[in-house]
Structure formats: structure tokens, C-alpha cells
């Protein structure tokens, strides 16, 4: 007998049941894995034809209660978020900026429709560009920002699901996790800010994904690695996410097992740092890392964001801009943030909620410090506020003093009912307003007016809200010397700040025929003298809306 035959026979003769046996049970062809037992149909998951399908089936069977609850929550969240999302809030300049930058990427492979100057890392609008690419042809959103807002409906739904996952994974009861999602989706602040096309919303989705991943129940190594990637992506969408990376890292440390921790942390940290530094590498490759004569640089961008940006003062100074911003939030809703501030300290003490409470605490601490406070800052607070409040409720529910075991549940129910009674009416009113009022009407009408009344050879100064719509629907684009893409419609900031635009229009405001004056333009006019001159030397030819929100089309008189 040949050695091979001898060995094969030996191996076959003592083959054990189940040890190294060939693969999973083979599929039964033509057989639907459903059978009838009495009146009921039983789905036999073990007979699904592929291993991955079987695993998905088992997973769904194990989580069907969560899936059902989450489905209901997502439908509700989608309904509240989606109804009237084009009309409220009115478009504001940043949204237009990001969709225009995405457009520049899509059509010209450029990172911005004007010179990219490292104001933010570009990954956020790369996602928007991807969405624009995918939605071209079938999407009939009324304007470019509205098209962007459709993507943000999706981002909101994903974020809701992630909030649920995080809540479950830190050990909250299903009902508390559902409560966290409800707070996160229905709070009027959330409805207001989650609808906007902002980098903050994209970054927060990735931060939440990172959080959910490091809380992996089986402590999977590659979930920690993926969390590192998500953190890097979040920071490359908006550098602000750096604030929330330490709490994610803390959650990673907390949730990892002693036996595999070294490698979980190593992968998380390495991938985060290395992918994040691709931004530096990008600047190096472009020769734009350090400041130098005649070119933009990452150094200048960071210097601007950290040092040169005008401070908006302290929130404790009643006349400061920061205080106004804070009041702006509290006017929309003060209940969720208020409850979260109260719950933060106890949530920091309880081990399971410590990481999410830390994420909130760090941001609250930054809020206290005087400095530049953008209105969008609230975006980062909301998911953690929802989780901390739901976590506190869950902790009260679980509180069972030995004498009166029902005390915890009773207090929890009482608190929930009170909260519902206090928050319910104002939230319903505020959400209804956001679902029914078209605050964007003046801007939409102004856009329509320019499209139908202004000659396409005219030169128009405008903010970014309608810049892209004018380009796409009437004025067209072409590559201009120095890296911008229209010499007809010009974003008003750039006439003062972009050297290439200044070269193209040596006469400044005198080279323009129209200026579109929105609330945002009027608020910032002190920073852009050319636009100021244009406003001063112009007369209103059309006007939409009333009061501070009005939009004027002005004809420049030279």
C-alpha cells in the first residue's frame, strides 16, 4: 500500500463525529424553510440555505423585540424629521457651502468651489458628494440644500439606531433604550439641528458608530479596530469630534477584556491616529502643511480655528454672543439639556453610563469656557444628553431598596409621567411648528425671482444658500483662473477674501449687477467691506418675507 493510501485509511477510520467534519449542514434544494404546525407557520432557521443567512436569522430571532421596537421608533423619528424638513429651518449659509463644496468635488474634482483653505477636513462633503452622485436623475428636491437634507434624514435614522444600540450595549432596559431614541429624535432642538446639512451631524453619526462598536458584547477585536476607523472618519468630517474620542477610548478600555485588551487598544489607537494623520499627509503632499507666502496651509487653518477666531465671550456674561447662542438653544427647548445637566453627575458615578456621561461632561465643560461657540455645538450634546437622561431613568427603575422594593420603579414611573406632562405640550407645539411652517419661503422665492428675472450674463453677489441653485439652473459653471468655478455668480465672502476672485474682479463691487441680501449677509457685512459697498450702492428690486428674515434682491447702481 502506498504511504498516501495508508495514511488516508488511518485518517478515515478514526474520523470522529463533529471534529473537523466537512462544513455546515448542506442546504436542502427546493425546500422553503417554513413548515406548518397546526395553524401556525414555523420558520425553520436551521434550514436556511446559506450560513450567513442562518446567522442573520438566528440574530433576528434573538433580537426580535428590539427590532420591532426600533422599527416603530424609526418610523416615528423619520416622520417627525422628514415632514417639512425642506421648510424648517430656513437654509443657512453653511449648508449651502457644504453642498457647493460637494458639487465642486463632483464636477471639478476640487475640494471646494473656491480655494480650499483647510477650514475643515474635507471628508464630510465627500459623503455629500457621494449622495449627490447617487441621487442625480431621480431625486426632485426643490433645491440643492434640500437634496442634501434628504441625506441627513438617512443620517438621522442611522444615528437613532446607533443611539438604541449604545443604550442596549451599556445595559439599559429596552424601554429605556427606546426612551433615549425618543428623546434624541423628538426633542425640538434635535428636529431643528439634525435636519441641517452640517458636518457636525455626519461626524456625530460616526462617533456614535464608534461608541456602539467599542461596546461590542462579545468584545470582538475587529469591532475595536473599526471603532478606531470610525473615530478617524468622524474627526476627518469635523475636527470637533476630537473632543469625544477620549470618552470612546475610555469606553473601549472599560469594555475590553484583560486577556485581549492590549490588542484591542493597539488597533483602536493605531488606526485612529494613522488614518487621522492622512489629513496631515495630504497637506504635506500638497506642500501646504506650514504657513508660507502666497499659499493656504493647514497651519493657517488650525491657527484660525483655535486662536484667531473671534471669541464669542462667556456664557455667563449676559451680553455675550455665546450667551445669545445658548439662549437660542434654550428658546427652542430647555428640558432635555436641563435634565441632562442634572443627570450628568450621577451618570458619571454609575459605571455603565460613565463613558457617555463623560462625553457630555467634556462638552459641557468646554461650553463653560469663554471662546468661540458656534450654534451647531449643540449637535454634539444631544445624543449624549438623551443617553444620560435615559440612563438615569433606568438606574432609578433598577433601584430596589430592601424594605420597599417597589420604590425604584414607582419613582421612575412618576418621573417619566411628570416629564411627559411637562415636556409633552411644548414639544408637540414646537415639533408641529417645525413640521408645518415653511420658514424657507423667502429664500425659495428670492431664488425663483433671480432665476426668472436676472439675465444670465449678469454678475450676482449672493450667499451660499442659493449659489449652487443659480449655477445649476441658469448661470452655468466653468473653471476660472485661480481655482473657482463661476464668474457670474459669486459667493459674497470671496470677493473680499479670495485673491483669485479679487484678481478676476478688479473693480470689486462695481463689477457686479445684483446683490442678494439675506439675513446672514446683513449679519456679517461688517467683515466684508465690498459687500457692504454693494449694499450701500444698490436699490431693492424685489423683496420676500418680513422683518429680519426678509430676503432682498438689490440692483447695484454704479
Amino acid at each position: 500500500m502506498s504511504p498516501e493510501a495508508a495514511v488516508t485509511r488511518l485518517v478515515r477510520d478514526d474520523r470522529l463525529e463533529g471534529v473537523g467534519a466537512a462544513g455546515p449542514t448542506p442546504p436542502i434544494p427546493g425546500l422553503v424553510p417554513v413548515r406548518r404546525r397546526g395553524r401556525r407557520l414555523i420558520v425553520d432557521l436551521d434550514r436556511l440555505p446559506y450560513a450567513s443567512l442562518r446567522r442573520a436569522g438566528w440574530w433576528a430571532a434573538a433580537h426580535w423585540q428590539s427590532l420591532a421596537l426600533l422599527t416603530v421608533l424609526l418610523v416615528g423619528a423619520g416622520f417627525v424629521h422628514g415632514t417639512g424638513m425642506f421648510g424648517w429651518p430656513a437654509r443657512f449659509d453653511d449648508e449651502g457651502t457644504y453642498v457647493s463644496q460637494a458639487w465642486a468635488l463632483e464636477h471639478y474634482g476640487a475640494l471646494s468651489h473656491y480655494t480650499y483653505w483647510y477650514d475643515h477636513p474635507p471628508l464630510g462633503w465627500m459623503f455629500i458628494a457621494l449622495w449627490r452622485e447617487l441621487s442625480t436623475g431621480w431625486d426632485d428636491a426643490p433645491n440643492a440644500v434640500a437634496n442634501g437634507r434628504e441625506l441627513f434624514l438617512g443620517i438621522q435614522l442611522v444615528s437613532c439606531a446607533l443611539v438604541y444600540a449604545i443604550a442596549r450595549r451599556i445595559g439599559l432596559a429596552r424601554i429605556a433604550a427606546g426612551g433615549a431614541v425618543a428623546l434624541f429624535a423628538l426633542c425640538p432642538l434635535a428636529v431643528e439641528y439634525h435636519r441641517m446639512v452640517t458636518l457636525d451631524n455626519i461626524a456625530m453619526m460616526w462617533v456614535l458608530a464608534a461608541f456602539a462598536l467599542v461596546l461590542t458584547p462579545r468584545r470582538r477585536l475587529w469591532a475595536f479596530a473599526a471603532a478606531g476607523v470610525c473615530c478617524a472618519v468622524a474627526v476627518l468630517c469635523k475636527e470637533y469630534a476630537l473632543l469625544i474620542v477620549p470618552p470612546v477610548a475610555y469606553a473601549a478600555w472599560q469594555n475590553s477584556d484583560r486577556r485581549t485588551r492590549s490588542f484591542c487598544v493597539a488597533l483602536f489607537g493605531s488606526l485612529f491616529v494613522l488614518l487621522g494623520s492622512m489629513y496631515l499627509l495630504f497637506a504635506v503632499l500638497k506642500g501646504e502643511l506650514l504657513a508660507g507666502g502666497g499659499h493656504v496651509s493647514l497651519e493657517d487653518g488650525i491657527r484660525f480655528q483655535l486662536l484667531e477666531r473671534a471669541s464669542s465671550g462667556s456664557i455667563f456674561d449676559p451680553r455675550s454672543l455665546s450667551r445669545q447662542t445658548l439662549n437660542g438653544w434654550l428658546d427652542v427647548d430647555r428640558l432635555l439639556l436641563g435634565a441632562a445637566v442634572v443627570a450628568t453627575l450621577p451618570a458619571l458615578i454609575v459605571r455603565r453610563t460613565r463613558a457617555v456621561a463623560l462625553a457630555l461632561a467634556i462638552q459641557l465643560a468646554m461650553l463653560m469656557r469663554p471662546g468661540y461657540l458656534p450654534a451647531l455645538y449643540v449637535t454634539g450634546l444631544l445624543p449624549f444628553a438623551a443617553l444620560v437622561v435615559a440612563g438615569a431613568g433606568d438606574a432609578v427603575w433598577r433601584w430596589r431598596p430592601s424594605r420597599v422594593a417597589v420604590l425604584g420603579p414607582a419613582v421612575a414611573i412618576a418621573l417619566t409621567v411628570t416629564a411627559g406632562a411637562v415636556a409633552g405640550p411644548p414639544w408637540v407645539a414646537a415639533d408641529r411648528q417645525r413640521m408645518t411652517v415653511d420658514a424657507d419661503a423667502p429664500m425659495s422665492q428670492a431664488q425663483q425671482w433671480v432665476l426668472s428675472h436676472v439675465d444670465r450674463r449678469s454678475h450676482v453677489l449672493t450667499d451660499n444658500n442659493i449659489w449652487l441653485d443659480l449655477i445649476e439652473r441658469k448661470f452655468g459653471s466653468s473653471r476660472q483662473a485661480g481655482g473657482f468655478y463661476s464668474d457670474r455668480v459669486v459667493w459674497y465672502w470671496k470677493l473680499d477674501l479670495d485673491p483669485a476672485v479679487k484678481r478676476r474682479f478688479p473693480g470689486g463691487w462695481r463689477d457686479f449687477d445684483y446683490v442678494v441680501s439675506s439675513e446672514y449677509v446683513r449679519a456679517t457685512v461688517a467683515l466684508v467691506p465690498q459687500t457692504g459697498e454693494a449694499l450701500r450702492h444698490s436699490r431693492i428690486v424685489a423683496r420676500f418675507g418680513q422683518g429680519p428674515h426678509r430676503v432682498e434682491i438689490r440692483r447695484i447702481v454704479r
Partner: protein
Amino acid sequence: MHVALLTAYAVVTLLFLAVASTTLVWMLHAWQTPDAFEETRFPAGGMASGRSFSLIVPARHEEAVLGATLDRLAALRHDRFEVLAVVGHDDPGTAEVARAAAERHPERVRVLVDANWPKNKPKALNTALPECRGDVVGVFDAEDQVHPDLLGRVSEAFDATGAHIVQGAVQLMNYRDRWYSVRNCLEYFFWFRSRLHFHAGRHFVPLGGNTVFISAPLLHAAGGWDPECLAEDCELGARLTGMGARVAVAYDPELATREETPASLSELARQRSRWNQGFLQVLRKGDWRRLPRRERALAWFTLSQPFLQAFTGLVMPLSIGSILFLRAPVGLALISFAPLLITLTMLGVEVAGLREFCRLYGRRPRLLDYARLVIGTFPYQLMLAYAAIRAAWRHVRGRREWEKTAHVGAHLEPQEAT
């Protein structure tokens, strides 16, 4: 830039990326989850298991270390086993040491003389095989430091898994001796602690050269080791798994057989090029082709990996350098950095590995050790590349003689070495 050049770049980059990422994923296999980690250990002890062992110790010019090794082996805590020391007919010094040990332990140790010429390890092993009377044949090297309870645990592993082969762990210990020692130790750590378990799950295991235990009937039927192969251990693994044999891999730090890194860089390069050349022989011999499709791909990839890695290590700096020099578009340049990114991630993982290694073996890592690990990356890669090229060159020239690695006992605790 020219389209063909860009395509070539893309292909090379993808190849680098594939080599680097698979290496990274596989070297971390054992730590995927804490549950999976537990499964890589030896089955819990305590079961009575009555397998008998024949332990072969081939030795050539090992008079400095062999005596102590045979004494330790003879003292293993197991009921039924024998130790077969194989010495060369031209090596009276070692034979003397072996015979002295046999006289000290007449009931355990026997000495066999290998008269083959030229000499190599597989021939020595084959000399001993007909004399083996145990249920299981095990292999140890002359300088190995073996845990006293290993045989019992291996016996239980056979019972618990139903495997035909049990591969235990080997660990280099003297990570502070030379600049390359820390990298060499970590290679062993990742290989035995993690990577081999991945191979066991995929039914293709390049076996290690010692602390390997094979069912005696199977080994007899297979006709023993390939006498001409320079990586006889890997060859046997490829051959037996190709015929359907099942391999269990188990790791416990306290049960790992302790060895030393080669005493000089040129020794290390020679040892590595011998293995690489052996891999080429196994690749050419083609027993692995009998494996099912996925395992076959894994076998091919594993056997080619030293060469792919050498190629990657040499060409990646060139590729990145040229892309910077040629002022390629920024997007392309960023993509060409992707394999480097994985490589640096691997470095981060190695740093964690050093920490873990020291924790498991009760050592205290110093900053210098981490520094050597990080700074040594590129020079070590150069050494690996040199070894791979040397191996390929010798293979093409048909030079097959065995280049033996010398042992000085640097892995032993001070009191044992003296």
C-alpha cells in the same frame, strides 16, 4: 503619467495591501474575542490519559547543551515515555554527552547513531523513527527547555480534540540580547500564540520543528520525514494535512518550550534562508495541491509569504519614494500610502505584543526594548529580504545542504546555564 505605469502602480499597491492586511489579520487571530482566546489553550488538565510517547532529540555538535536537555526530558512527569537521542557517527563529542545521559537515565534515554551522509535533521529523525515504541512521536531540539507537565497535557489534547497531530508552542526567550532579538522573539510569539491557530482552523498547518507530537501509526504509514527537505517540519504538515490529518494547536505560556534566538545576525539570516528554501521545496513538491480549494490558496499564500513579504519590504519604500519624486496626483499618492498605513498599524500591534509577551512570561519591558522593536523594523525587514533572496538564489543553484544554527544556551536561566 502613463496609463500603463499607473495600472502597474495600482496592481503593486493592491498586492502590498493584500499581503500586509492578511498578515495583520492572521497574526491577531487568537485575540479575536476572549472566548476564542480561551479556546487556544490546552484543554483543562486533570484527566487521566495513558498515551505513551517517544521523544526524538536530534543533536549535532551540541555537547554544550545536550546533557542538561536530556536530563530535563528524562525528568518529565509522565508515566510512559522514552527519549531517543540521535547523534552523528562523526560527532564523538556529542555522542559522549548523550551516552553519559543514557547511563544516568537507563530506563528513559537511548542513544542512536545516524550514519547518513550528508547530515541533516530529517535524516536523523528518520533514523530514530523505526525505534520508536510510543503511541505518539514527539520532536525536541537539543537546546529545548521543556515544561515537566507537557506530556500529560498533550496526551489530554489528543483525547479532547481527536486530532492526529498536536502542535505545542515554542518561544524564544532572550529578547534583550541583540537588537534583533526582540523582533525574533515576537515573531515566535505571534506565530505560536496566534497565527498557527488560524491555520489549524483552516486545515493547513505548517508544523513547527519541535514540540510537535504526531500519532505514531500515522507517521509510520506516511514514511516519516522527507530526508531532502530543508523545512522538514513544514513539509510534514503540508503532506499530512493534504491527506486529511487533523492538527490541534494549543498554547499555554507556562507549557511553551523555551529556546534562544540565533547568536548573530548572519546566523539568523542563514536560519531564515534555510526555512525559506524549505518552503520553496514544499511549494514545488506540491503535496498541498491535494487540499480543497480554499485551503490550497492558503497553503500557496503561506508558503510564498516570505518572498511576498521580502518583495513588499523592498519595493514599498521605492514605490512611495518614486510617487513623491514624480509628483503624482495627490489622490494617487495618498492611496500608495495605504499599505504603509497597515504596516504601521502592525507596528502598533507588535508594541502591544511585546507588552503582552512580557506580561505572560513575567518580564518587565524597558523603553529600550520598545525602541529596538520600533527602530529595528526596517533593518529586520532588510534581513528578511536578504534571507528570501538568498534562499531563492540557492534554490535555483540547487544547493540543498543543511546550514545548522549553533546554540549557546542564552535562553536558560543563569543557574541552569552554569
